[in-house]
């Protein structure tokens, strides 16, 4: 089985990719502005819920329970969805999922397919597979459409074009929609998108969606969105195919009560999503005639097997941790080299790939805890980051210079006698670099420090030396 997470296996190490992003001042301004707007909105609507902490606890409990009994609920979903006229398929990895979807559409000789936002299809690179098979995918979520037309990559799991500003989007639309003129105002851009999409909604006979929730007890699927494009994709075509990771299942219909409150407030700062579409199999005379669900593993069951990191799968893809993360806010999502950026991406991507790639991602965090604080299902992301760092070290993938420094420090810290000697050596060593009590240009690992900041030199007397003298003088 080969797990693929977008193009993450070929991505640059995070520090290198981040360096480029940090140098892009337009991108940093765009990301800062967008995350500030969402953060403020989220703060307001979360603050007005007196039972927010209880809701978080409930969301966490439902997810934990479901994942401990995942096999049971998935089979229950399959049974009930099938009973309602849906077809359920199982895919062990990205390639199998893509193959199943392409086959379903090719059998009906579909040439185009309209898509409502699905990060999972970016994970499998479904669009590439569709194009290879001669089927043109049309992204209908406004931001996904901007990314697709701009031949770009998503930079956020909820607002994938957050790194673009209005002027950049106008340029993309002018070029790719074949327009002669286009205004600069948001309503001008929305108008152009509406015209472009409306024509495709009415023409295309096949749709692809992701899933926010799969309800085991009824076999229903739920997709939430803000633009109405999803409702079009889910109701207008003759055939609908839903791609979902296996962790999307929840036990009961009433469990959505919890998530339909947690998700919109965390994701977009809305009290409720403007569009909540829930459907069960096929209904004669209403909506698609043919409905398929592809349940995909692609590394998820391996994540589940790791007791210390399995909470990663609780994620409901709200993106609140991205908006809160001070690292993401400097770099945007592309630095993470994966369709999943930010703190959740830093723990999800390496795990899906069995820690084979992306080993720099668990270190892409200052462990400030802002992600854990906002997570609507209480995933302790810092704890999991540290767990994954330990795996990197265990696997022997940490840099040699770092291992040397850590082993050296552990040796020196083992007892106070050694520590005193280490102080002495450090003081001797620093004399070469010291100027007015400051160190401005250090070699090796510490060069990363002194490139941007002065380092105070070790004073002549440590605290323990001072204390010893003081006690002796008493």
């Amino acid at each position, binding site marked *: 089985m080969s797990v693929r997470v977008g193009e993450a296996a070929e991505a640059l190490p*995070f*520090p290198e990719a*981040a*360096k480029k992003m*940090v140098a892009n001042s337009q991108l*940093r301004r765009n990301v800062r502005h967008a995350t500030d707007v969402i953060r403020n909105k989220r703060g307001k609507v979360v603050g007005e819920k007196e039972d927010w902490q209880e809701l978080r606890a409930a969301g966490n409990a439902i997810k934990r329970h479901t994942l401990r009994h995942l096999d049971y609920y998935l089979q229950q979903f399959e049974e009930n969805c099938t009973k309602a006229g849906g077809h359920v398929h199982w895919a062990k990895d990205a390639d199998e999922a893509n193959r199943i979807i392409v086959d379903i559409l090719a059998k009906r000789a579909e040439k185009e397919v309209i898509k409502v936002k699905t990060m999972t299809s970016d994970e499998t690179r479904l669009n590439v597979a569709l194009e290879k098979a001669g089927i043109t995918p049309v992204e209908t979520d406004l931001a996904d459409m901007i990314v697709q037309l701009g031949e770009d990559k998503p930079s956020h799991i909820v607002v994938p074009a957050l790194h673009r500003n209005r002027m950049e989007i106008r340029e993309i639309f002018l070029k790719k929609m074949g327009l002669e003129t286009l205004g600069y105002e948001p309503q001008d851009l929305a108008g152009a998108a509406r015209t472009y999409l409306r024509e495709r909604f009415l023409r295309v006979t096949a749709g692809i969606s992701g899933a926010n929730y799969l309800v085991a007890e009824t076999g229903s699927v739920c997709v939430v969105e803000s633009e109405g494009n999803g409702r079009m994709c889910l109701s207008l075509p003759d055939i609908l195919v839903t791609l979902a990771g296996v962790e999307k299942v929840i036990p009961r219909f009433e469990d959505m009560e919890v998530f339909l409150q947690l998700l919109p407030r965390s994701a977009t700062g809305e009290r409720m999503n403007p569009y909540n579409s829930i459907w069960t199999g096929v209904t004669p005379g209403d909506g698609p005639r043919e409905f398929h669900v592809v349940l995909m593993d692609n590394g998820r069951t391996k994540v589940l097997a790791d007791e210390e990191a399995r909470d990663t799968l609780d994620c409901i893809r709200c993106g609140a941790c991205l908006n809160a993360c*001070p*690292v993401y806010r*400097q*770099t945007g999502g592309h630095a993470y080299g994966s369709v999943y950026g930010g703190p959740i991406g830093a723990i999800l991507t390496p795990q899906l790939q069995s820690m084979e790639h992306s080993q720099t991602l*668990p*270190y*892409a*965090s*200052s*462990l*400030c*805890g*802002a992600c*854990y*604080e906002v997570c609507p299902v209480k995933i302790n992301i810092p704890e999991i980051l*540290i767990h*994954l*760092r*330990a795996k*990197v*070290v*265990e696997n022997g993938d*940490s840099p040699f210079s*770092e291992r040397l420094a*850590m*082993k050296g*420090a*552990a040796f020196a*810290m*083992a*007892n*106070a006698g050694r*520590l005193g000697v280490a*102080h002495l050596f*450090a003081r001797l060593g620093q004399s070469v670099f010291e100027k007015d009590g400051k160190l*401005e240009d250090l070699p090796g690992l*510490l060069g*990363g*420090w002194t*490139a*941007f*900041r*002065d*380092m*105070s030199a*070790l*004073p002549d*007397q*440590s*605290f*323990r030396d*001072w*204390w*010893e003298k003081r006690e002796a003088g008493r």
Partner: protein
Amino acid sequence: MLISLFITCYNDALFPETGKAVVTVLERLGHAVEFRSAQTCCGQMHYNTGYHPEAVDLLRHFLEVFAGAEVICCPSSSCVSMMRDHYPKMAAESGDPELIRQVQEVLPRVYEFSELLVDKLGITDAGAFYPHQVTFHTSCHGLRSLGLGDKPLQLLRNVRGLTLHELPQADQCCGFGGTFAVKNADVSAAMLSDKTQCILSTKAEICSGGDNSCLMHIGGALSRQRTGVKAVHLAEILAATEKAR
């Protein structure tokens, strides 16, 4: 009360003045201070970077050194959060019942400096005099892990001569993050530049904090940029009196 000082490894080597200040404040308040000289490090750097066996060795050493200590004071919220957030898990994973028991026994007696003053000793006025414009950086571990809230600010507000300036975007990380600062130096520096901009916008001449690790990072940039603004640990402000000037 006999208070045992856990100075922490980097304060010991780099910031002895902070340790001296803690001793000054506690003795001025009428308490006895002891320094168990066998102490070294809490293990945070090793643990957070992924070197867990090494961190467990340091945990064992810490427990050995501080066995029987009545109250332990540590002038670093990040080291205290290391102990509270991770020691129980490290002990549980070791499967050693004695280690689990020792951790359970020691943790309630560990206090961060401002916690010790406000919660344990019931002090919000430490009797200090410090005629300066000051802003305060609440480090992430103090804010989110220990939940210090406004304890350090209560202490600063009662310092005579001191004008406290509110720091904008105080909940944003300064970008230190231990080895993060060297492993991801560019992002760390970008976060730091936002922090120094906020500090400079307050017009304060001193940026205080409860963690010399963040302050070393922030102060290093303030010094490199020749801003004339200094980073000073909370304990050093509380130790200052008119007489000592």
